[in-house]
């Protein structure tokens, strides 16, 4: 089993390297360059060439890639082309903002969704199952900015319970932070809960058709116990998968929610960087996103390996 996990980890590193190639190639073929963006209308061919040389853009792409990658591996993300500040100084605060919001939403959404999904499966066909199904479908199909605006309308404009903008700043109190971020958290919880719930329910129901579940029923066990003890352990791997997928979404896919609530996260940071053609920022943000995806998928796969009794307790070895 350890070899399998090691193999998976090596594959993760390899995937990350592929991501770096794609990110670099992708930003290379982006139309226009930062020199053009900085100089704007006043650019002359001479001034463009001078600025390019200054920024190191005249070096061959392969060499720039090698330098960028070695720098990146050592934690040096380069400097912003627009402001000249180190990328790391600009990026990490935003990254932690995004992580904080994702953690807030995930800590509520994951247990809630898995619990509701298992309950819906146990009460298949009942009122609870049908209502949760319809609600989940509604949340999945509504665009998140629309959900966000609805919440702002009800919980902020009409009732005034919560602020409509998620303004956060250094040194703000914990209570104030929670108050400011609760609305975007609610939107994220709705969207992710819906997906995890539906997936959990489907997976558990799939296992419910297995002969060993029938065995459990024929022992005279009650429905709830059969679902919890006999079906759910065998549904764990796919559930972990969809959970990790949704956590990845919470970190990397929330740019619209950040925009609606004016939250200072990594998604907006990257969009702004793209519009300014600030390639080092774009590359660094893309690598962070890619890294998060690769890491979470790797965790899900390793969890699936670790949860498989056949791999955990190989044949031929006693218990």
């Amino acid at each position: 089993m350890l070899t399998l996990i090691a193999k998976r980890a090596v594959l993760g590193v390899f995937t990350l390297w592929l991501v770096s190639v794609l990110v670099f190639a992708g930003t290379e073929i982006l139309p226009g360059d930062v020199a053009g963006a900085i100089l704007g209308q006043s650019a002359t061919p001479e001034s463009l060439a001078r600025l390019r040389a200054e920024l190191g853009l005249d070096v061959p792409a392969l060499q720039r890639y090698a330098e960028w990658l070695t720098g990146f591996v050592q934690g040096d993300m380069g400097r912003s082309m627009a402001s000249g500040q180190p990328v790391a100084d600009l990026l990490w605060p935003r990254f932690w903002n995004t992580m904080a919001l994702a953690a807030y939403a995930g800590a509520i959404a994951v247990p809630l969704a898995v619990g509701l999904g298992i309950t819906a499966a146990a009460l298949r066909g009942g009122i609870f199952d049908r209502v949760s199904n319809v609600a989940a479908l509604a949340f999945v199909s509504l665009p998140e900015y629309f959900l966000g605006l609805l919440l702002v309308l009800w919980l902020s404009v009409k009732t005034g319970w919560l602020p409509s903008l998620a303004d956060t700043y250094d040194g703000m109190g914990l209570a104030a932070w929670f108050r400011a971020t609760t609305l975007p958290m609610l939107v994220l919880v709705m969207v992710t809960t819906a997906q995890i719930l539906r997936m959990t329910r489907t997976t558990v129901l799939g296992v419910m058709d297995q002969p060993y579940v029938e065995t459990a029923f024929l022992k005279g066990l009650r429905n709830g116990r059969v679902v919890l003890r006999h079906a759910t352990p065998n549904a764990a791997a796919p559930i972990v998968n969809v959970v990790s997928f949704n956590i990845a979404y919470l970190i990397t896919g929330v740019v619209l929610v950040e925009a609606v609530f004016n939250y200072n996260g990594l998604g907006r940071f990257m969009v702004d960087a793209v519009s300014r053609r600030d390639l080092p920022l774009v590359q660094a943000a893309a690598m962070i996103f890619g890294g998060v995806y690769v890491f979470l998928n790797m965790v899900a796969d390793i969890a699936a390996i670790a949860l498989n009794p056949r791999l955990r307790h190989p044949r031929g070895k006693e218990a």
Partner: protein
Amino acid sequence: MSDDILRIRDLRVSTDTGVELLHGVSLELERGEILGLIGESGAGKSTIGLAAMGYGRGGCRITGGEVQLAGKDLASCTRREREAVRGARIAYVAQSAAAAFNPAHRLEKQIIEAPLYHGLMTEAEARAWMVELFTALGLPEPETFGRRFPHQVSGGQLQRAMVALAMACKPDVLVLDEPTTALDVTTQIEVLRLLRDTIRKYETSALYITHDLAVIAQVADRLVVLRHGQEVETGPTQQILTAPREDYTRRLVSERQASLSAPAGAAHKTGQELLRVEEVDATYGKAPVLSGIDLSVKQGETVAIVGESGSGKSTLARVVAGLLPPSRGRVAFDGAALPPSYRRRGKDLLRRIQLIYQLPDVALNPRQTVAEAIGRPLSRFQGLTGGANRAEVLRLLDQIGLPAEMADRLPGALSGGQKQRVCIARALAAKPDLIICDEVTSALDPLVAEDILRLLRRLQDELGITYLFITHDLSVVKRLADRTVVMQKGRIVEEAETDRLFAAPAQAYTRGLLASVPQLDPGWLDSVLTAP
């Protein structure tokens, strides 16, 4: 009568779509008695077994009659009352223990769950009882056997552990649903003995469900013969076997003793060698599965390859078919070397070697009609299209004994035997020289299997086809094969004319294999076990 532990009266069970599966079945089970339920698939055997526990599979419901277990009617009592009885007073042994054990938990956790849940024993008592059962069932290291996970023990051991699971609450009644059908013959004999002895030792009553008359003859006191959800006849085992009253029962009994006595059409036997396998080794990954296989098959001949699971017989079929290139050795077909992989075999070679599989359900595309399935090889190999294709499809259907109106049906609308006939027609459409039959009758009911064997035999007489017949069923071999090859652990143990092999097997392994085939004689199991 008062001593009946289980009494079923006029039991009716319907699916959730309203189709009635059981049309009023009645039976009584006395204390300590083993009652055999026998019949083909679809006869309603399992439905009765589960209904005896107040359980319906996949939306089936009891719609009429009563199921009295120790005086309580499971058909009319509340769900809580049913759950209290299930597992505790009546317990179930499934056909496939491998599927019936939860892969996520250790055996002991699953076995002691029911007695603890029902509050019948303390954990220490339940464990002690489990160890006693393991010992009675001949499981290795009974003290620690329960620490294993289901995938860590063999099929025969798991099936015995399933019996321990069912006996965990010391139930009054066991429902055994084909408990040895999934096992190899030599394993079956052992499990059968332990099963019978354990049931007798603890004076448990049992409903024993099977389609195999010879197996049930060894264990049951009385038999109920079922067909289409109705009782055909009931009687003591000896009487049903020796003096059946109903015609259907007579056919079931005589099928076991039947033989296709007429020798295969000698006209086609040219004595010319069609297939030659020389010094073939094959591996799956690094694990060797075949070593040093030599085999020769003559034109128009039927060669059976028999062996237990894991003997490599199906792998040999895959090597010949080109699905698994051998790691060493040569295969020659009709005098010329056969490319190891089917990918490198020309269209004509592919046409000349055809394969028929064990499971016709899986081998047919559910979205293709019968005519499409059979018509495809006709257009590919013979270039027949349109009306000519259709005419040939109908001719083939006639040849395999299916009516022409079947041509436009989808496989879902056919029975298992009909599907297997379509698979045979599809193979015939290529006009092959060699057909590899991989357990083609194993998934079929005895009487249907008998028909398929007759069909294969007739086609050989008419067309001179050569068969390579892979099977674990020795009674099939006896009826069909000219020569028989016995395999064990990837090697050929013995090879001889079928008659000679059965009359005077040279190898101890072959003798053991032959002796393990259940016989209709109710004393057979004891005679085998007492034999040296």
